[in-house]
């Protein structure tokens, strides 16, 4: 993503060009949605939160510092919003709320047999379930890394921490995710959960 394109769009919007904000919305809508979906685990909630995020961005754009990347700033707003939502009303949810198909088939999978298609769908839903089992801060790091394809440096920028701290958080998150994923899939190996943060995945009582 070219940052100068975003800066130009922001500048146009601040001069009163509403179409510029529309262009930013179209460009980043899915990225923001993916972050939020990965953190809150519900499509409907992710859609609502996406609109919230863009509303917040719309109002806050005059405060946007042109030196920062717009995308980084946007992702930070989205991640913060998602974390707040996940830590708020959904505290006791440890399963994702999949009210409609959350994952589509990739083009290469269209020719697969139904059993293989089912397996892939189950695996993707397992990914989402395991994400919901992870602490929110781990979810945040994993979503930025895997759903947004950000580098560790970019993740650090979004999270507002040092690169070393981002690396440690991501490392821990991947380990915890791996342990839970393996355990959920029923393979040999020990499940593990980082109990330093328990705000997201308490068992239902």
């Amino acid at each position, binding site marked *: 993503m070219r940052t100068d394109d975003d800066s130009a769009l922001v500048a146009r919007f601040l001069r009163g060009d509403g179409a510029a904000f*529309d262009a930013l*919305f*179209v460009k980043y*809508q*899915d990225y923001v*949605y*993916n972050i939020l*979906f*990965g953190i809150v685990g519900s*499509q409907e909630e*992710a*859609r609502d939160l*996406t*609109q919230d995020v*863009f*509303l917040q961005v*719309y109002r806050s754009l005059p405060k946007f510092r042109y030196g920062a990347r717009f995308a980084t700033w946007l992702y930070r707003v989205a991640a913060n919003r998602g974390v707040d939502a996940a830590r708020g009303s959904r505290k006791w949810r440890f399963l994702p709320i999949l009210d*409609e*198909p*959350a*994952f*589509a*088939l*990739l083009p290469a999978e269209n020719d697969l047999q139904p059993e293989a298609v089912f397996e*892939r769908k189950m*695996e*993707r839903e*397992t*990914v*989402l379930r395991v994400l919901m089992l992870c602490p929110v801060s781990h979810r945040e790091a*994993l979503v930025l890394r*895997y*759903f947004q*394809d950000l580098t560790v440096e970019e993740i650090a920028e979004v999270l507002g921490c040092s690169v070393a701290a981002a690396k440690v958080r991501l*490392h821990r998150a*991947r*380990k915890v*995710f*791996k*342990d*839970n*994923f*393996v*355990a*959920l899939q029923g*393979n*040999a*190996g*020990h*499940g*593990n*959960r980082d*109990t330093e943060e328990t705000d997201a995945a308490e*068992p239902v009582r």
Partner: protein
Amino acid sequence: MLRNLFANYRQRSTRTGNSECDRVRPQLLPYLDHELGSDERHRVEDHLVVCSACRTELAAFERVEAALGVAAAAIESPGDLRPGFYARLEQSRRKQAPIRWALAAPAVACLALALFVANHLTVEPGHDGRLRTDSTSPPAAITNAMPPHLPVSDSPSDLVTSKPADLKSAASEISNNRKQLAASGSTPRRRVQADILSRRNRVSRQAVAIAERPQPERKLIVAKRARLSDGIASVSAAPRATMSVIDAESLVPADRRGASYLEAETSQSRSAGHRGGVVLTSLAAETDLHVSDEDRNFMASTHILATAARRDIRDTLRIDDDNERSEESVELPALP
């Protein structure tokens, strides 16, 4: 299954007791990410050749990487969220618009009036510290600002030049009116009265006017809320600032209960011809007067005007003479 799953979560370590495994396991992710130097990488690879547990661990990491990547690529698009976004944006604008209008319109009106009055109404101190005007009739702007059903006195200077005795009798009348109201009122009115009473102290402390002190004569104290007499807001100056709060409704005759006046002053002394001025603001139907604590230089508080109104509730301040003690009086803070 879930119980076992959660039981497993409580295990914090996967140590095997093999020191080489314990050394290599933390390196698996950096190995996967190609972050190891060549020596370290070879050491890990040499260990993986002989250790199936570590190979399994690495394979698990690789599977997770793949699963996460594919899941990310396969997330169903939410569709076009713009219609919902713009609808919410419009909704939030509509919510803010009435407040903006309510805030802006009186401010604009007051500003226009203040400018006119400042140019046309000159106040000069008198020996008794009362304001005198040099016009025999209210400026047209003030007259026009008043609701049509409120009669205008032909001689507002009479009010501003009232003697202390007149003020005392007016205060006494106000007190009597209030008592009558208190005795007469229906339950809702009493509740409202109680509400006003409970806010008196706060309001009176807040409603401290600007003090313009043309040296060396006197302070000019202007009530934040008008003292009403025959529908005209008046100002009286007292050497010492004491103010009290009474129920404005007691000042307003029954046929004028649609409005009250708010009075403020311009704080800057400009020249001999302009020793401050007064701004009269019509409050069409106003209650729950909220006065900013810090707004000492109060012109015409828009947040007062913007608050929701209940037609039968007013609040006002009565400016007391030095010798007059009211039920509740507040010492104005010292003026510069």
